């Protein structure tokens, strides 16, 4: 008996905490607010590009792809898009980069930003404006940029321990640098990343005064160590061409097609809102019918099942919020399906209990036997669903369809929690009711005697 009381306290505490974390949904719990919605529910774009890494030696590819990710992150942040999710995927030696842009309106602009190769540009002052610093090599006017860096940049520290970003010019770069620094002695030379000036640790744009002509190598001072490291990675990536696009087959051979994504999906925010509304309506009707059926068919145990289902729903929602699990439309279907399946464990137990009652056992004994005998069936049958979910999760990772994983994840979590609900919550509640001997009439348990 005391064990049941402890369990009840545990269940109530769990329920209370879960309820507190999801009502209201945007309460800040461990830094999480609201549910994380997939692009199909909140609107937004999803892009997958393959990276052409053939020009890069295999050992360096991982690092360079991380650099590419950083470049894209920086560019997208500059567009003012909230919470982009960017991931590098590696499969069978091929690299791709998946970009989720929630709620973006102008996908064309986003694609433009993603496609560009990252360059540091050196600029000189022209009255108020900063214009690209140019020089003439072989009769051609060229902009001094990180395009002409030799090999990879690296980090060093000066005598005071401050980080320095070291770079070396290639032949063209040497020519350009000599001309430009020779021309700009005593003046400032600013460094731009895209359209933004590079800023130092103090927040000011980095624009050192040229003291002497520089030919071979240079260094950038004033960056924090973290920024310097990131910039070095960016430069190493931007300098070496890693075109983003996709591989296509043309006349039997593989050709790289730049700038066109492997997958692209854009969902309108109104469609997302509509989907949410419809899902809530469907879930409401479906679950209401289900609860009604359980009540009418199983009576008192049905009521207990409804209670534990209520707890189940709230705890599941709290898990989705706190993990957090990204909810997609199929994910919501998975969630609703798992509620249907959560009932299954209860049904198994109740049917078994009824059988035992009909077989002449006492109420307490029938419930205990019902639970014990039903357990093997619950365990064995749910494992097959777990197997399906795990395979789906793998499959989802190989696809452009981000929705598949959402379904597999919510169904898996849902089924796992449903086993817990049936075995711990329903059982404890039923034991307590039977133990208290409030209801002893057999018809309340759906059995005629």
């Amino acid at each position: 008996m005391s064990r049941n009381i402890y369990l009840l306290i545990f269940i109530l505490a769990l329920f209370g905490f879960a309820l507190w974390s999801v009502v209201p949904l945007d309460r800040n719990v461990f830094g999480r607010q609201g549910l994380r919605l997939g692009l199909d529910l909140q609107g937004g774009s999803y892009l997958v590009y393959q990276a052409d890494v053939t020009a890069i030696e295999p050992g360096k590819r991982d690092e360079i792809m991380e650099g590419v990710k950083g470049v894209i992150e920086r560019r997208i942040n500059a567009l003012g898009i909230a919470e982009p999710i960017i991931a590098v995927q590696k499969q069978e030696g091929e690299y791709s980069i998946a970009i989720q842009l929630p709620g973006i309106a102008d996908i064309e602009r986003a694609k433009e930003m993603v496609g560009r190769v990252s360059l540091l540009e050196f600029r000189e002052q022209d009255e108020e404006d900063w214009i690209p610093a140019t020089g003439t090599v072989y009769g051609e006017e060229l902009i001094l940029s990180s395009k002409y860096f030799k090999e990879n940049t690296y980090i060093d520290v000066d005598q005071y321990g401050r980080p320095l970003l070291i770079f070396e010019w290639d032949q063209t770069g040497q020519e350009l640098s000599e001309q430009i620094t020779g021309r700009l002695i005593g003046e400032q030379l600013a460094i731009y990343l895209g359209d933004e000036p590079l800023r130092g640790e103090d927040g000011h744009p980095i624009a050192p005064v040229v003291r002497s002509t520089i030919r071979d190598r240079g260094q950038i001072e004033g960056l924090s160590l973290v920024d310097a490291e990131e910039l070095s990675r960016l430069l190493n990536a931007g300098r070496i061409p890693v075109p983003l696009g996709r591989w296509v087959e043309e006349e039997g051979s593989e050709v790289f097609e730049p700038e066109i994504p492997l997958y692209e999906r854009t969902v309108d925010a109104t469609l997302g809102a509509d989907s949410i509304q419809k899902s809530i309506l469907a879930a409401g009707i479906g679950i209401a019918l289900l609860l009604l059926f359980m009540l009418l068919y199983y009576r008192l145990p049905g009521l207990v099942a409804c209670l534990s289902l209520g707890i189940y729903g709230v705890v599941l929602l709290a898990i989705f919020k706190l993990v957090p699990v990204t909810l997609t439309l199929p994910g919501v279907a998975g969630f609703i399906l798992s509620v249907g399946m959560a009932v299954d464990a209860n049904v198994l137990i109740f049917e078994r209990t009824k059988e035992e009652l009909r077989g002449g056992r006492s109420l307490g004994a029938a419930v205990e036997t019902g639970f014990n005998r039903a357990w093997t069936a619950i365990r064995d049958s749910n494992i097959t669903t777990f197997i399906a979910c795990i395979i789906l999760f793998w499959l989802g990772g190989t696809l452009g369809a981000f929705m598949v994983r959402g379904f597999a994840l919510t169904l898996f979590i849902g089924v796992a929690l449903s086993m817990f609900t049936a075995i711990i919550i329903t059982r404890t509640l039923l034991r307590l009711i039977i133990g208290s001997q409030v209801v002893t009439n057999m018809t309340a348990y759906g059995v005629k005697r």
Partner: protein
Amino acid sequence: MIDFVGKKHWFFLISAILIVVGIISLAVFGIKPGTDFAGGTSMTLQFSPPVEQAQLREEMANLGYDKATIQNAGEGDFIIHVTEITSGEAKALAEKIGTELNSHARITDYYLASPRVGAETARNAGIAVIIAAVAMLFYIVWAFRRMPKPFRWGTCAIIALVHDVFIIVGIFSLLGWLAGVEIDALFITGLLAVVGYSINNTVVIFDRIRENVSKHISTDFAVTVNSSIVETLGRSLNTSLTTLFVILALFLFGGATIHYFVLVLLLGVIIGTYSSICISSQLLVVWEKREWGALLSFAKRAG
């Protein structure tokens, strides 16, 4: 007591008919691959005021998209699958169609998949289904390892699983022919979920047979199996019913995006329940009693 095992030949006959019809449909009409498998662009067009599907088809043909698949998604929405066009081209196309049809067309969902990934996706989906079947076979063999010939139990469950998959794929082949319904990654997702669910049901019945065999309730295996089916019938039907409530609600009110995904689940739960009550355990009996010959002669008579 209902004699589920005694009527096994009739169940087998019904299933055989369903499967054969499905296979014929597959052979004749094939199956319409969606954007995930065929590549290209699919988009949902929302018209206000609404337009007729025939009008839209005609207009698409006029604009050179006579091979486009057009699916009515209800509420003035159409899902269109064409060969690859960029989001910019799609926007222009939508505007043009809107003007021509005296309506306003808005793209609410744009999806492009490279044709190259399609084949890979199809391959991966195939691998996933096979791995799922093999993994479940091993799992059931393991779960029933204490029974004599556990491999037999696993095989019967997998036959029922394949049976479910064939019927659902057959129905979608027919739907593709009748209503332009396409198969996408979500279809495979639904199929795998259903496979898990169907095996789940089968395992519950097998579990009861296992228990009744060790209780020696009858010397006749057919009787043991039949009482196991009948004893678990309440559970089987109630579980399916509760699951059907929620799926049906999703099917009716859940919106177009997951409409056919939910249909897979709906069909899967119904067929999965049928196959676990009427097929898998019966196969076990046929195998145990070596009645394969009798089955064939029945097939001959029925044929």
